[in-house]
């Protein structure tokens, strides 16, 4: 049990917590934070597991750097989308508004066809 393995185990714990949050939380920003939590967990596992023998391995560190940038890009995109979504619908979750989900919008119905 080396210190770096401890990182890996911490990463495992983060993954578990993050997954719980991701599946459980409804608010989109919280969901996004849970996603970042899982991401951090994965990065920790990646770095920690690779250096279990003490010597540093630069490859996973570089990978994690790349991974972080990708995660930031994804997070940023998600935030932009969520903001705009909130701006247009006033909602912070993905739940469909009740009125709409019941029936398709009336104005799109040009004609009632024969029932199937």
């Amino acid at each position: 049990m080396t210190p770096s393995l401890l990182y890996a185990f911490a990463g495992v714990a983060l993954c578990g917590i993050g997954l719980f949050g991701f599946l459980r939380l409804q608010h989109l920003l919280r969901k996004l934070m849970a996603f970042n939590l899982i991401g951090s967990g994965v990065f920790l596992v990646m770095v920690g597991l690779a250096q279990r023998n003490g010597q540093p391995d630069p490859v996973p560190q570089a990978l994690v750097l790349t991974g972080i940038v990708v995660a930031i890009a994804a997070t940023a995109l998600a935030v932009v989308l969520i903001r705009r979504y909130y701006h247009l619908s006033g909602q912070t979750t993905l739940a469909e508004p009740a009125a709409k989900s019941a029936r398709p919008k009336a104005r799109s119905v040009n004609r009632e066809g024969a029932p199937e």
Partner: protein
Amino acid sequence: MTLWLMAGLLFTPLAWAVLTLMVDFRKGRLVTWLGMAVQVLVSLGLWAAVASDGGFLYLLGGWQAPLGIELRVDGLAVTFVLLTALVAAACGWHASIYLDPGKPWHRYFWPLFWFLWAGLNAVWLGGDLFNLYVGLELISLAAVGLVALGGQADALRAAIRYLMAALLGSLAYLLGVALIYGQFGTLSLAGVTELMNSGDAQSGQTFPLVLMLLGLALKTALFPMHGWLPPAHGIAKSPVSALLSALVVKASFYIAARLWLDLGGELGGFALAQLIGVLGSLAIIWGSWLAFRQTKLKQVVAYSSVAQIGYLFLLFPLTWGVTEAISLQAQQGITLQVISHALAKAAMFLAAGNLIMSVGSNRVDALAGVSRFLPFSLFSFGLAGVSLMGLPPTGGFAAKWLLLQASLASGQWWWLAVLLAGGLLSAAYVFRVYRASFIESTDTDQFYHPSRSLEVIPMILALMSLGLGLVAEPVLSVMSLPFEGGGQ
């Protein structure tokens, strides 16, 4: 020559992404046409080169794996590169006429489109587990961007749901990659396979493979993780839906398939293979049923994708623990299914877009009587539907035939029922649309004929999907060319 072709293949989409970012929609359209021509030619050239000389490894930056990233340019990869070039060019061409140049946000369509194309090529050729992750993210983000482009709340909801699913899937995959790297110390898929087969290494763990497959299955929308797909594919603009259904979901499946074929023999098991097969079967049945129940035309097509994706996952049981010959048969069947579904579904979405444009409504009922206007797009839709139903002589049928043979030969007869029932169920939702178009209703007097080129594009794709069944043999023979490992 192949070096130049490879450089062109990697460079063009990325460069055109930048170029089109600099100009507005109309200019971007012109620039894109040029780029599509280049890209199609380069893909064809590469395909021809591999078809005649066999595959090779392409060392990016001149560094060999495991230090560098190797691209695996084999028959299967170039077939998919060519498929991507054809389908993406068709969708791009369609989009260039279909999208309204007046909307300021449509200028961003082109860069996202090109990034998507670049990501797809990266995935088809990728031989490095981590690089595949980056390629997947490139695809996902570009795809989400395209779905959300200028959209209203519904489109954004679909896009966010799609993004969340895609991100979770990518992380699961990445976690698997981390574990694989931890165990083997290399990221090259070929390297890991070699280590595993050589027996030097301790036997690998199943869990990383399961994690990766789970993540990729989520991104491929395998039942029951398909919830994100229909809203996203249904609400995006038709050319975008076509790209997403035809190519994007295939990218993650392609990685899953490669992982399975390389590592599944060692790390997988009968139960895992059967479980995936069962999920695929449920996807076929449930997806078809939901497609049948939809009231909106594009939702029908989107749910049909869920069902058709189910077929792909029959690869897993049909290649595990069977002889080489049966496995090859199953692989060929799945490859054909991927190609024919890509062509047919792209045709279907583009045709659906045209039809919606023509009748001014996105409901299936609204199609009542349109067949009297002889819309070209309805024919395209119909032909594509024939392929989805798996009726001869389409590529879908050839695929189904090979899968039937593989299931029979491997003694897994239960997939036969799934394959046959799936064909009938898809007939149910396809014929529902046909049926609507034949209703003679008196009040259908307005029909707007879209421009010829909009109508021709889905027709070409549908005919290709139809003709694929007739030329399946030569196509498949390129795919299974011997891979000449080693240097360039």
